[in-house]
């Protein structure tokens, strides 16, 4: 049996999800008109995906895969995803 390292010598236990982004699809028209970029934004490091306009004030989005409702102004203020 190995002798345990002293606590201060130990590295933290590795944890968390192991993921990466794979841009898949056809980049036929990379212009703002045909691109879906404006519909994917970033909030606190998570992807925010536009779903639909609910009314003049609210937008349905998916934040990190969870359904959320954001004020339109907040949605517009989010930076567009640059993948």
């Amino acid at each position, binding site marked *: *049996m*190995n*002798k*345990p*390292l002293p606590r201060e*010598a*130990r*590295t933290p*236990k*590795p*944890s*968390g*999800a*192991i*993921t*990466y*982004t*794979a*841009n*898949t*699809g*056809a*980049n*036929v*028209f990379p212009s703002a008109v*045909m*691109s*879906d970029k404006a*519909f*994917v934004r970033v909030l606190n490091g998570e*992807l925010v*995906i*536009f*779903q639909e306009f*609910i009314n003049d004030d609210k937008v*349905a*989005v*998916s*934040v*990190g*895969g*969870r*359904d*959320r*409702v954001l004020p339109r102004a907040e949605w517009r203020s989010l930076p567009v*995803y640059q*993948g």
Partner: protein
Amino acid sequence: MPEQDNTPQEAAVPVPLPQTTALVLSTLAELHRQETGAEEDVFRTLPFFGTALGLVIAALVYAGGRLPRLPDLATNRAVIAFAVASTLAGLAAAEAVCVILLLFRAVTLRPYQRLGPEQSLRDRVTALQAYYEGLGTPSGGRDNEVTQDMQHALIESYAKVTPINRAFNARRYRWRYLAAINLLGSLLLAVVATIVIFGADKLGFLPKVVP
């Protein structure tokens, strides 16, 4: 309609329940596989759209060939038949263009999420081995600990990426749905235009087209 999400975002750290962990892991892996396969669904339906658009184009070519020139319209009936048929054919053509634009939207590039890459998974195993070695865990029990930790890391990864991919797929399906609606509209308009021209031609409303 999505509701405001006020639930806590962080899940509790799972306790080691081998059978439950294996069940959850296999279920999440299957859900992830389904979403990954669904990414290609829109591409698989492109030949169907192409075939249907071919029918629309054929109908429009027929309509265009049968419609007389404007100066040849001598009667009011001929003018009305011409106006109705050409309007229907024009709308069918416009909807066909919409179908193509909507399909471009459906297949456009999106930042889908994936597990890995493989080297990162391997690096995590190595890091966990080093961690348990540092703890002094016997080599026999180390494999069990690393396996459990990797299972939890994979569960966390699946839980993170699958809903995002599902949201992207929902958008893809939304664009494809709109394309399908426009396609059906285009088909209907083209068929009606063809019927109008055919009927008007048989009733003698339209003058004979001189090639």
